[in-house]
């Protein structure tokens, strides 16, 4: 059950589930999100899911209180919603130091070797929690605690598209070139976001993801295709 439902500015309703990131909260949030999507309520522009919250964005400012009441009733409706089938994404990553410019930092902070970093990063199966921060940027959970590394104290002005990174307790992939404060450990030729495609990003919450190590020749082959 959500903890709070409140107005967030003139256009949005914020529904919060407290401060604990866990699977049952995630399922509850996604069930509710799917019910809202399936209702095709024409007052709603879009919804956004994060770890512990669901934000409902409205098209106008007029119907905000009316929509809060509607949401409360919808939440209590008992029909079970089917969530979309989750996929497993296998993402090739080149961990060559040419791309993994902070590999040594991650290794040193954790007192392990670079080979250990690559092993631990590729061994895990990650869950996609939601997409945010940048177009197509997946928030992943499941990073091995032995790879936790604080963000850089000074972000870089720009890093390459496809950079694979670790920031604090999180790992992710930068789908477009961007300023970045995370530690860069490799690069993937996989395209996470393409504005020319419909949909531009196919990764969905609850999908799973694995990183597969490739060498620099394989990387070059994949990028020349």
């Amino acid at each position, binding site marked *: 059950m959500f903890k709070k439902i409140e107005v967030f500015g003139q256009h949005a309703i914020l529904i*919060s589930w407290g401060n604990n990131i866990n699977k049952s909260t995630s399922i509850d949030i996604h069930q509710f999100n799917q019910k809202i999507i399936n209702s095709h309520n024409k007052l709603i522009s879009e919804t956004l899911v994060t770890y512990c919250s669901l934000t409902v964005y409205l098209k106008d400012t007029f119907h905000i209180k009316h929509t809060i009441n509607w949401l409360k009733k919808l939440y209590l409706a008992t029909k079970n919603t089917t969530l979309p089938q989750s996929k497993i994404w296998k993402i090739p990553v080149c961990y060559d130091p040419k791309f993994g410019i902070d590999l040594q930092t991650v290794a040193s902070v954790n007192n392990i070797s670079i080979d250990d970093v690559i092993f631990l990063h590729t061994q895990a199966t990650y869950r996609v929690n939601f997409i945010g921060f940048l177009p197509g940027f997946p928030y992943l959970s499941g990073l091995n605690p032995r790879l936790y590394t604080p963000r850089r104290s000074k972000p870089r002005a720009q890093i390459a598209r496809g950079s694979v990174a670790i920031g604090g307790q999180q790992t992710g992939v930068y789908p477009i070139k961007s300023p970045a404060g995370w530690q860069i450990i490799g690069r993937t030729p996989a395209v996470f976001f393409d504005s020319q495609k419909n949909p531009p990003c196919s990764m969905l919450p609850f999908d799973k993801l694995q990183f597969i190590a490739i060498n620099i020749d394989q990387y070059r082959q994949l990028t020349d295709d």
Partner: protein
Amino acid sequence: MIEVISAGLHTSIQDLGRFGFRHIGVPISGAMDQTSAQLANALLNNNPDAAVLEMCIIGATLKFTKDCYIAVTGAQSSIKNNSVIFVVENTIVDFGRIKNGNYIYMAIKRGINSKNILKSRSFYQGITPQSQLKVGDKINYQTIENNILNRSTIKNNSQLFQNNKIAVFKGPEFDLLDKKIQKSLFNQQFSISSKSNRMSIFLDHNISNITANEIITSSVQPGTIQLTPSGQLIVLMRDAQTTGGYARVLQLSDFAINQLSQVQIHQKIKFALINS
């Protein structure tokens, strides 16, 4: 079409924004000062979501190859504001230095015909091929058939260019703040830092010991004011990211976002709390 002779400081095509893709991390973008952008379209009887040119601080120089009607709104430039202007073919228009604000909007009858990407013409790096116009760019518009009879000048919202009462709501994390910090957000003046851009406006201040804990990443929107652990106040604007990990202490009203977009660097503002 319009040919860009000089691109000004930052000229881009914007409409009211890109909706429907925030769940995959796509910011809304769109005109910074939507009050002025909408007025420019209204003067020409355009659709409210017709794309306009947004110019910042230094205006562009444009050549119009066919007759058309334009309207210019927002801050002051070399071109008369808030009325319909007939431009004859092959005229070169220099918008010059922009004063008494940051942004001007040039609407053209029937709107700009650039490519719609993800349901919007608004420029955004990583979504549209360009984030701003450059010399030599060509912009399409439709040629006009009817004469527009309206020649009157209309007034823009007089509150738009005043800085003393920027209306805000409490943000989701406002109640977690120390009471002294809560008070200081309303009895202090803040000035606009030169670091500011279409993504965020940084506010300079003299408040000591102002801080807030990071939050578990949650949603943010244009108008969300974040407070970082190191005491930095950041107002997220139209190109801001869709999620964030800093405390959301205040939320600007829709009109306040437009007002704030026009406050010049180093000028001071004050917030006024709306009790909802």
